[in-house]
């Protein structure tokens, strides 16, 4: 009986552990810059939280990992991909913001000795949201997650910071509240690569968890950056900048303008949900899953204008 149960469990367990048997598909989008594109789905047991763009940049002396995926399992495969490509040590793990699909792979990098780096508000937000995220992710992943899944930053970016990887320097900048209140921008100066995390969504509908007006203001600022390419938090891993932001810009402006219009006309949130941004429906993946939440967030922000 004991053996039978073990066989049963193994049989049930095998497909799970085989999910990344072929590793993680990574594209080298510029010299030493590797990015993996997450799937456009919600987190599930099948995708194991592999829904966000994650990757790493290799210097002469150091590797910097940028975002680690939505589960320790994704983080482990990313780490294996790094170690397979280079003997250069992982010195830094940079988290672009607080959302679990970008930081729940951190745990896999703890024993590399890497320094974890994030926005100056990241530690406080992980502390405030960590338990809530852990429970929600465990439910969606259908897997146990212990408290160690939350790895706070060792070093905070107050405003700007430079990381010398040897032969190339990464420039980090903490943004005011936009997509979230923990958004960090990474620029690889050697290749002109702008890594935006979830400040930029392509194909997948943006999700608003910070400030709509703040996000638009930050995009105005980022558009001035001269970059060879951009890495969005979700979507194709290498795109032209700032052209890649055009759809998101239209969506956020529509959300702002139409929400203001219905608030001014005396709408309730219910009425706003029926009237704001419905014309964007066919322009985005996962529209029905996230659009209503965006309208509610926009409404709650803009009704205090």
């Amino acid at each position, binding site marked *: 009986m004991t053996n039978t149960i073990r066989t*049963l469990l193994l049989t049930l367990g095998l497909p799970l552990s085989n999910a990344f048997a072929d590793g993680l598909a990574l594209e080298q989008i510029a010299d030493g810059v590797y990015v993996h594109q997450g799937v456009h789905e919600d987190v599930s047991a099948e995708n194991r939280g592999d829904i966000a763009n994650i990757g790493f940049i290799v210097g002469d002396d150091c590797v910097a990992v940028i975002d680690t995926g939505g589960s320790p399992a994704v983080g482990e495969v990313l780490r294996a991909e790094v170690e397979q490509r280079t003997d250069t040590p992982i010195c830094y793990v940079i988290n672009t913001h607080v959302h679990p699909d970008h930081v729940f792979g951190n745990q896999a990098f703890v024993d590399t000795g890497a320094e974890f780096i994030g926005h100056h508000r990241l530690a406080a937000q992980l502390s405030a949201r960590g338990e809530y995220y852990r429970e929600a992710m465990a439910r969606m992943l259908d897997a146990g997650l212990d408290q160690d899944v*939350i790895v706070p930053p060792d070093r905070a970016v107050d405003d700007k910071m430079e990381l010398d990887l040897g032969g190339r320097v990464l420039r980090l900048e903490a943004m005011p509240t936009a997509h979230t209140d923990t958004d960090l921008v990474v620029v690889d100066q050697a290749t002109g690569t702008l890594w935006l995390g979830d400040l930029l969504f392509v194909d997948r509908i943006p999700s608003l968890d910070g400030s709509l007006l703040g996000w638009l203001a930050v995009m105005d600022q980022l558009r001035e950056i001269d970059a060879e390419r951009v890495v969005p938090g979700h979507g194709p891993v290498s795109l032209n900048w700032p052209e890649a932001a055009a759809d998101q810009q239209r969506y956020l402006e529509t959300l702002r303008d139409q929400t203001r219009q219905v608030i001014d*006309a005396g709408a309730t949130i219910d009425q706003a949900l029926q009237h704001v941004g419905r*014309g964007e429906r066919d322009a985005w993946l996962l529209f029905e899953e996230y659009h209503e939440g965006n309208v509610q967030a926009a409404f709650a922000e803009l009704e205090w204008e």
Partner: protein
Amino acid sequence: MTRLLSLLFLACLALPAFAVDQDEERWDAVRDDLFGDRAIEKGDHLMALQAPFRASDAALVPIGVEDRRGEGDPAISRVWLIVDNNPVPLAGMFEYGPAAGSIDLSTRVRVNAYSHVRAVAETGDGSLFMVREHVRASGGCSAPVSADDQEALKDMGQIRVRAWDRGDKGGADLQIGIRHPNFSGMQMDQVTRLYRRAHYVKDVEVLADGERVVRAELTIAMSRDPSLRLASGLQGEQDVTVLANDSEGHEFREVLTISPRISDFDFSAAE
């Protein structure tokens, strides 16, 4: 082996029925707590409950009561909004005053688990009537409000009032917002493992030209920045007073003269 599988199978089959029983047991307990052994009748002819089938944000679920009463239907003095499966099931109790134009009411609540949401109305003679809907949402009460208290408490107590003419229905819709983090007491800090103490808006009274529209007793189930939309029975320009206090004894107050605006936006139009 076969036995193990069939046990699993049975367990799966049994779940839905078990869930239904649990729902009924929960409501029995909540009803007993709030209304004792008073009879509660179906109230669909008097009011409708507006609630989303699936909430896009469990910490901000719009719910509303729509007045359906016609000629000859009884006066309603109080309405309770209840979320059965919340740790504190009562979200709010609303007592209507002489300046209330109808029992129309919209607000935003936290929903912590898939739950029935109910409105129970009490008529002038003390009879109780109920309508209910089911909402799919979870984690609304434990969802974090903010990373730091200073940010959350900024502008606390600021009150915003807007008014729109209700057209054929008569009177004015008063949209009232109160800046407040409304900490539920269920938000845990992952590092310290401590729960931030509850701190929320408890009582709100709204007056029009000195007469009560509504007095509300609210709980931790109300969303951050509590929002109430109420119907004043007064036409045209009116003095609106909002008095509120929170669980830590802070008092908030706003008095202003307001002319209901006429909205030309056609909310009934399909997109």
